[in-house]
């Protein structure tokens, strides 16, 4: 078995699946960031993504819990299921609104009006959709994002929302976290893509991968 949910509900990812998730996530993140680069006309670099199995009590040590971010969450369904979060720290969020609404840099002071929220929600939605499309094209299955949900608040609470829904379904002590950070080269825009897949749903992904690469990794 590549995904073990034992009696003690410990979660294990085989090296094959971990690498595969990171690579698929990497391809998808590149597509999402290309979309962001086109929208903003900026050069944006992505960092090397990570895939980790994290105990839920520790997950808040991996993110800056109290940092105020603009976050867009979509639920994924299809080839696998889970939650995708696209997060922009406050300053980057303000800059994106400036750019999209044709304002001078620094003109947007807060994320309050419906217009500002909508601009960010749409940015997150475009990134999430590009992310899903890239995976769906690559693996030739459907991966559908739900309508986006927007919040401007503490990063920890947003991560918590995603974890709760994943854990609720699995009764698991651990979650799988894919993370990819990206930044504009003068550091005006910084952001994170976080993916929390439902561990059970990765079995479908795994069989798709195995038939695609033509190897059987089952031990």
């Amino acid at each position, binding site marked *: 078995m590549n995904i073990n949910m034992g009696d003690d509900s410990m979660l294990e990812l085989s090296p094959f699946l971990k690498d595969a998730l990171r690579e698929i996530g990497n391809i998808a993140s590149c597509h999402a960031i290309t979309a962001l680069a086109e929208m903003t006309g900026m050069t944006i670099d992505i960092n090397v993504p990570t895939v980790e199995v994290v105990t839920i*009590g520790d997950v808040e040590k991996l993110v800056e819990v109290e940092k105020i971010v603009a976050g867009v969450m979509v639920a994924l369904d299809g080839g696998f299921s889970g939650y995708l979060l696209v997060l922009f720290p406050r300053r980057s969020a303000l800059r994106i609104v400036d750019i999209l609404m044709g304002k001078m840099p620094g003109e947007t002071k807060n994320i309050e009006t419906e217009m500002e929220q909508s601009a960010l929600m749409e940015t997150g939605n475009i990134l999430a959709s590009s992310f899903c499309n890239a995976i769906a094209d690559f693996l030739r299955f459907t991966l559908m994002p739900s309508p986006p949900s927007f919040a401007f608040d503490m990063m920890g609470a947003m991560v918590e929302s995603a*974890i709760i829904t994943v854990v609720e379904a699995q009764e698991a002590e651990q979650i799988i976290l894919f993370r990819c950070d990206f930044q504009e080269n003068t550091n005006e825009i910084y952001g994170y893509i976080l993916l929390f897949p439902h561990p059970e749903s990765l079995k479908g992904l795994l069989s798709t991968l195995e038939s695609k690469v033509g190897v059987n990794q089952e031990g």
Partner: protein
Amino acid sequence: MVIEQSKSESESECEVRRYYAGIGEMRVAHNPHQLIIMGLGSCIGLALYDSHARVGGIAHIMLPDGKCDDSNTGKSCKFANRAVPVLLNEMLKHKARKEWIVAKIAGGASVFSTMDMLQIGKKNTIVVKESLKKEGIKLVAEDTGGNCARTVTLDTCNGEFIVKTKEGVKRI
């Protein structure tokens, strides 16, 4: 599960330490230390405080009820229906007395409001309140619901529960 204790008996001269509870965890400490939970969304921050012994405890509760038994994993504060007795027991071990203990709660928000079909925050709040009633613990203050994330601090000097949101700071 980590139980923190002040080493020094001369409390006034003791350095104030901060202890953090992650999701599903609890912390217990004596005066003058502080117990903190950061970034509560739909989770509940439960604070129990004994003003005589000046012992406080917090639990970071995630879901209303658990279907499976997780008592052996040391994460027994994950579920609202079990967290109250578990935290209470731990406090009693630290010289707190049940008749002196009062409760304060915060959290249970709905951060992504359009995606909160399950209303977990609301359910969490209800189950924690029921559980407190069952144990005979008086709920003296609460700051629950809404759409704002919260960071809470229990000050074991005076039992003050400090609730911080992006809007500002409240002391309950």
